[in-house]
């Protein structure tokens, strides 16, 4: 049984923030969930995926976040409690659906989870999705801890149902990926069975209807404001005159700092957990009880600007600050030291931060970014493309997935990236305006997510570039989730369809399509040369299962690891051109760590001395 399906409530359970959110929703009647995976949200849906296999919960990996949002919208409007789960930038993709779903509303609770990523641990930007709540006119809740996240997500479903509007639930990485003990309540998984009552005058958003629906949304927002005013998620601690308004994980740093600085008798903290609409009266009253107020929030000055506007309405002139060069930054995530220093600066408390150990004598450790795995087929594809394109001026737009890691030397196979699908969308323009040979890279899952429209557009507009689709049979970077192109036998599940990438590409009208096996280096180079010689849109589909994923697959045979033999004359092509982490230098010569090597044999194929051979079986 899945551990989150236990009904033993006698003891606390140690869970990851994302597990707490999953369990909280399942205790609150969730029946339907859809997602496109994205860190830091991925474990919520991974747990739902597993749980759906042994309970009534309906769960699906949709092709992208917009589809996930639409699925949840339809389920919730058929009376089924639903969730759509995504990372912050995923909400950009789903926003088209959400902004008008706000008008249409819901019948049963619908929570839209957005997992923001301050500091960009695994994202391309650190946008602050609280503004989506304002933009859409949607209630928003934000937890400060793992335990609160579990409680709050259930409340969010209830508030959504009560107000008949989707509720945004915003987390940050420090909630999603923190571990803490939580109390369990009885499970209450709903049945994904509903009924759709036709009501086109409220559901079909032609202009005349939307004009009326917008009025309804504003009425709902007024009701939401009343809930926010009395919500236990907006609470005050302390009775001092030094005000601190905070939300999310900042509240924890502030609480620790108040203790450390010994200013508990002077401070008054307003923790905002129901952050749209804000509890206007509560904030105004709070301001009147304070003689200065510091706003502690990661990201943009969302609370700060609102609080200043409330102060203006009350003609209050107390000092209110948040984002300032001596206080808090709009950049990155906070930590306890940042909060302590900002509070000391703002309230004028003498404070010397503990001296940070002077490590200037310690040799500088180079940054160690994540790397393509030993034996990753993307490395082979990148190498083959590089060889095939020798002598040409090339531009390599890339996309979002493990293969983005190919941007570092020695591969250096990425020149441009802005979002999911941009490898395809930007390719035509680079080619048109520069005349360079453009070779784009996109993964299988990203292709289904948002690569297909770009390719259709390119065929129609007769662009000239080569698209390399790196099909490794899974959505690898986020933890091996399925996508529409995978064989679900690999997950030991039936009842799924499967979409052939090759068929999609051909039916979009691409004339030059080649499928390669990238671990066969020379054949691959030849095929890629032909593709890039082709005038027009050509597609290479590079098929090889992800090495990490393959470890759990019976269908993939284990290969022998390789070793560098005495024939080695130390050209070091293997090390310098591939950058495979299984290699290390032993006495100035390349050697292979047999534990890391998975036997892809790419190095053996490029060694000019033929000096890399499989490890012999032990006698």
């Amino acid at each position, binding site marked *: 049984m899945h551990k989150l399906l236990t009904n033993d409530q006698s003891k606390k359970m*140690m869970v990851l923030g994302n597990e707490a959110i999953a369990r909280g929703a399942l205790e609150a009647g969730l029946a339907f969930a859809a997602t496109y995976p994205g860190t830091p949200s991925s474990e919520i849906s991974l747990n739902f995926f597993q749980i759906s296999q042994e309970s009534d919960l309906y769960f699906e990996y949709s092709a992208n976040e917009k589809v996930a949002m639409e699925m949840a919208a339809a389920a919730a409007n058929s009376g089924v409690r639903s969730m759509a789960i995504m990372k912050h930038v995923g909400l950009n993709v789903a926003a088209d659906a959400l902004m008008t779903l706000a008008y249409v509303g819901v019948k049963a609770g619908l929570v839209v989870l957005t997992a923001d990523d301050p500091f960009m641990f695994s994202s391309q930007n650190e946008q602050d999705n609280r503004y989506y709540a304002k933009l859409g006119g949607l209630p928003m809740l934000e937890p400060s801890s793992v335990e609160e996240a579990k409680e709050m997500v259930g409340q969010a479903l209830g508030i959504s149902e009560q107000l008949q509007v989707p509720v945004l639930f915003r987390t940050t990485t420090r909630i999603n990926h*923190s571990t803490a*003990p939580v109390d369990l309540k009885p499970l209450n998984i709903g049945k994904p069975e509903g009924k759709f009552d036709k009501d086109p005058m409220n559901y079909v958003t032609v202009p005349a209807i939307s004009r009326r629906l917008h009025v309804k949304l504003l009425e709902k927002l007024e009701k939401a404001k009343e809930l926010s005013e009395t919500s236990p998620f907006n609470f005050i601690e302390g009775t001092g005159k030094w005000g601190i308004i905070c939300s999310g994980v900042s509240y924890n740093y502030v609480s620790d700092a108040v203790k450390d600085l010994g200013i508990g008798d002077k401070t008054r903290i307003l923790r905002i957990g129901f952050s749209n609409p804000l509890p206007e009266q509560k904030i105004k009253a709070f301001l009147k009880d304070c003689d200065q107020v510091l706003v502690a929030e990661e990201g943009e000055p969302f609370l700060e600007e609102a609080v200043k506007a409330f102060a203006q309405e009350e003609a209050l002139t107390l000092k209110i600050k948040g984002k300032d060069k001596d206080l808090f930054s709009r950049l990155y995530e906070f930590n306890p030291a940042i909060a302590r220093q900002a509070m000391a600066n703002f309230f004028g408390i003498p404070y010397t931060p503990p001296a*940070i*150990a002077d490590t200037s004598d310690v040799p500088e*450790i180079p940054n160690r970014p994540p790397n393509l*795995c030993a034996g990753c087929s993307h490395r082979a594809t990148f190498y083959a493309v590089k060889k095939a394109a020798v002598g040409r001026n090339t531009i390599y737009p890339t996309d979002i997935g493990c293969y983005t890691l190919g941007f570092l030397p020695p591969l250096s196979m990425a020149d441009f990236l802005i979002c999911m699908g941009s490898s395809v969308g930007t390719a035509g323009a680079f080619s048109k305006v520069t005349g360079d040979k453009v070779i784009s890279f996109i993964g299988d899952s990203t292709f289904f997510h948002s690569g297909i429209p770009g390719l259709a557009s390119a065929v129609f507009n007769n662009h000239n570039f080569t698209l390399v689709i790196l099909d490794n049979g899974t959505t690898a970077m986020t933890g091996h989730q399925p996508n529409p192109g995978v064989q679900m036998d690999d997950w030991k599940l039936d009842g799924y369809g499967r979409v052939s990438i090759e068929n999609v590409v051909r039916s979009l009208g691409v004339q030059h399509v080649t499928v390669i096996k990238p671990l066969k280096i020379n054949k691959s180079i030849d095929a890629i040369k032909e593709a890039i010689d082709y005038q027009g849109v050509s597609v290479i589909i590079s098929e090889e299962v992800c090495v990490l994923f393959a470890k759990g697959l019976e269908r993939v045979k284990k290969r022998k690891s390789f070793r560098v033999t005495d024939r080695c004359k130390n050209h070091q092509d293997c090390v310098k051109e591939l950058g495979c982490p299984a290699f290390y230098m032993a006495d100035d010569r390349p050697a292979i760590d047999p534990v890391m090597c998975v036997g892809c044999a790419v190095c053996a194929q490029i060694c000019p001395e033929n000096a890399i051979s499989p490890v012999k079986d032990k006698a």
Partner: protein
Amino acid sequence: METTNVILCGLGGQGILFMTKIFAHAALGKGFNIIGAETHGMAQRGGSVISHLKIGDPESSLVRAGSADFLVALEENESYRNLPFVASHARIYVNSDSGKFPVAQVKSFLQAHEIAAYAAPASQMAGELGASLSTNLAMIGFYSAFNEKPFTSGELRETVERISPERFRELNLKVFDTAHDYGKSQGPV
């Protein structure tokens, strides 16, 4: 109770998350509160990985610079990288197969801050037991020999036994015990 701050570090794929889990479950077993902050997402792709653990009565999950009571590193260079987290008079436990740990400059740093360093060839030990991917368990076993608060080695061992997947349980315990016994005979470097 007083809060114990712990830093676990190493490389993606070495099993830092499982180590974190062992601490978390050990804490839960004793009824301690614990907050851990982990690196996920790219965690299996060989990059630097760090886990912050606070056991006791913490509000926030991140360990402040200069405040870690001890550090366990699965890789030598990552222990150097994370030295700023370590408090004076604290301890660091480092996996080092090279036998060259610590380099001279680090040694003088450790002396200046009165930080005791203990090293074990944990990858080698795990490899010799046929568990080359269990450096993490070897390091837990090794560090458990030094009576760090708040867990006894018995409690850590029991946790490993309890949360290891069945097919790895016996081997995990063997790695733990071997490294623990090795630790018993080791002093600071």
